[in-house]
């Protein structure tokens, strides 16, 4: 068993074996997270910088918890405290941070490609915590973890992703990873929310007819309507969006008996999902996804820092 990646940026570079390894190790960390003392000394002495250049609550807190449970020292960086506000370039900021002899950078940025640029400028391992409309690999991993936990395997599952495909960094990582793991993927949404070439990401089917697609799906993955990132107005109203693409109690009748509902959060109740579906005891995996986020992030940190002999004298 070997893990030969320095960064977690482009999930399409990860093989099925790599992804399986991450999920297996995440499973191992589940035991740690269920103890009274939810902390192991594994990464003691490593310094991880959480560089969040755009607002994020859940991804940032999930990373911070993962780091602390592995005993990393963490430095949270971003928001109004960033030097970029004072005119410093992002890459100069990265070079400055690297002078502190840090070991890994977690990057969230609203611009696509920034994690790669940070990796080039810093020389330390980088985890992409979401870049623009490009990728969000740890979100995809936690989704895969959740699906595998529920169904035992990802291969053969039919996953439908519903909503704003074109502006979704989750799709940029999740669709290629689902294909790597052998799932079938249907993307569902109005044409105004589709990327130019969804098949290039790996989508097997593209449709705007949610009701026709729903009965085939094992996983119904509802994307958040990212109102802050929609240029112009790609649909007439939230009401019409909910009418055509909302997962409602009424629409549940079309679902397979064991089909589950995922959502990357935060929820817009009444838009993508109604309360009944969001809180559905059997079907909703939404809170399990959040928990899985800590596990796969612990696994990612563990694997990327493993064997790095800088920072710590063994």
């Amino acid at each position, binding site marked *: 068993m070997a893990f030969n990646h320095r960064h977690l940026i482009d999930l399409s570079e990860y093989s099925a074996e790599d992804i399986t390894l991450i999920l297996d190790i995440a499973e191992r960390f589940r035991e740690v997270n269920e103890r009274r003392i939810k902390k192991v000394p594994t990464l003691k002495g490593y310094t991880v910088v959480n560089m969040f250049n755009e607002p994020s609550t859940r991804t940032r807190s999930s990373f911070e918890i993962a780091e602390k449970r592995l005993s990393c020292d963490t430095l949270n960086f971003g928001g109004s405290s960033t030097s970029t506000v004072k005119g410093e370039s992002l890459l100069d900021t990265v070079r400055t941070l690297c002078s502190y002899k840090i070991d890994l950078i977690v990057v969230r940025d609203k611009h696509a490609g920034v994690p790669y*640029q940070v990796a080039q400028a810093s020389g330390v391992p980088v985890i992409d915590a979401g870049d623009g409309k490009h990728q969000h690999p740890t979100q995809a991993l936690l989704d895969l973890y959740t699906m595998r936990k529920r169904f035992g395997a990802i291969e053969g599952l039919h996953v439908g992703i519903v909503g704003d495909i074109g502006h979704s960094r989750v799709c940029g990582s999740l669709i290629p990873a689902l294909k790597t793991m052998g799932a079938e993927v249907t993307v569902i949404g109005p044409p105004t929310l589709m990327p130019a070439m969804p098949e290039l990401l790996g989508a097997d089917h593209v449709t705007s007819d949610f009701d026709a697609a729903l009965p085939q799906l094992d996983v119904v993955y509802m994307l958040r309507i990212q109102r802050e990132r929609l240029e112009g107005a790609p649909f007439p109203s939230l009401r019409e969006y909910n009418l055509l693409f909302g997962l409602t109690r009424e629409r549940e009748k079309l679902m397979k008996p064991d089909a589950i509902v995922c959502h990357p959060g935060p929820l817009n109740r009444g838009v993508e999902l109604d309360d009944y579906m969001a809180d559905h005891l059997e079907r909703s995996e939404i809170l399990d996804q959040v928990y899985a986020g800590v596990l796969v992030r612990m696994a990612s940190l563990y694997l990327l820092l493993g064997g790095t002999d800088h920072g710590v004298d063994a």
Partner: protein
Amino acid sequence: MALMLKNARVIDPQVDLDEVCDVLIRDGRVVEVGHDLQMPKGVERDLTGKILVPGLVDIHVHLRDPGQEQKEDITSGTRAAAHGGFTTVACMPNTTPTIDNAQIVEYVKSRAAEVGKCRVEVVGACTQGLRGETLSEMGDMARHGACAFTDDGRGVQDSGMMRRTMDYAKQFDRVVMSHCQDEGLVGAGQVNEGAASTRLGLLGWPAAGEEIQIGRDIAVCRLTGCPLHIQHLSTARGLDMVRAAKAEGLPVTCEVTPHHMFLCEDDITGAYDTSFKVNPPLRTREDCQALIEGVVDGTVDAIVTDHAPHCKFEKDREFELAPFGMTGIETSLGLVITNLVKKGVIDWNRLVELMAVNPRRIIRAERVAVEPGSVADFTVIDPDVQWTVRVEDFLSKAQNSAFIGTELVGRATDVYVGGYATMEEGAIVE
């Protein structure tokens, strides 16, 4: 003072010349072209093995002067132009302030006369401040030597304004050069809409955003009769529209850049190298092929560089925040020789038409030919020298080229402007 250029292979389709001969120049003009010429006294240069052509002209260059001299200025930009083999460049008006009045036209021309290493023709703005609202003083600028008009960098968005611009400009016998970009359709587009935008998670800059304005401007050309020149054309369909307009007999010309011919959207990798961020964006491989076919069949009139220098710090940042544009004036000739002439796609005659004859015609510049009486603006090319594009060799202040590291064949070694050498054996003459 006399200058004798001996033993070069002289190529000039204007006078149907392609043979090894001598060119005698006196007081900036050609006196005689022939074999075994003699002169009583003067400077003699042996150009055996080289090719001599009418001086190359690049009619789409951003010299950034006045106002953005940290990127480039007239001194560095014209040195780079000479280094690339050009005797004349036409500079774009999107400077700070905009070249939208005669005073600034005069500034550029006088500064170029003082420090320039090539001739600088000035393209004035169509509208004041490139805002697309009020016509600029095109008449006054034309009197002070503006060679054409454009709102390059942005394009005239409103169709009525474009019609007014072209209606007004036609009285001065100047072309209106059009940067075709429909802002409504393009928005904040970063890369070609399609594979690149999907793969990289960047907003798409659709081909239709360019084609819709090419179509509109051809229609306005038909309406007004004003000569129209489509700038940095990048799509196959856009080229078809120009082809059809020419067949119809409309006064329409167009230009393409080396980067749109020799690079495509697939060259933009997950490294998000901002050198590849240009406007219009790199298109599909099929578009590249169509542009090359247009170069061959005559639909494309001119090869230009859209030389767009930027500071390293401006490009060394987030892809979506980096400015559009790449340099090109020092790589253009080598790229065209390597990718088109050496591969047998076009011959040297066609290169001379695309890079010297037609560009002069479009900017209404005096004809330059290898014949007695002509101004002695010549470019001498070593057709076989192999070289690698290197940052250290650029004379431009900028380094934002996507061709760094590319192996090329052929480059200019000597350049003469009005009978004076601006470059000899690859070195700028100070």
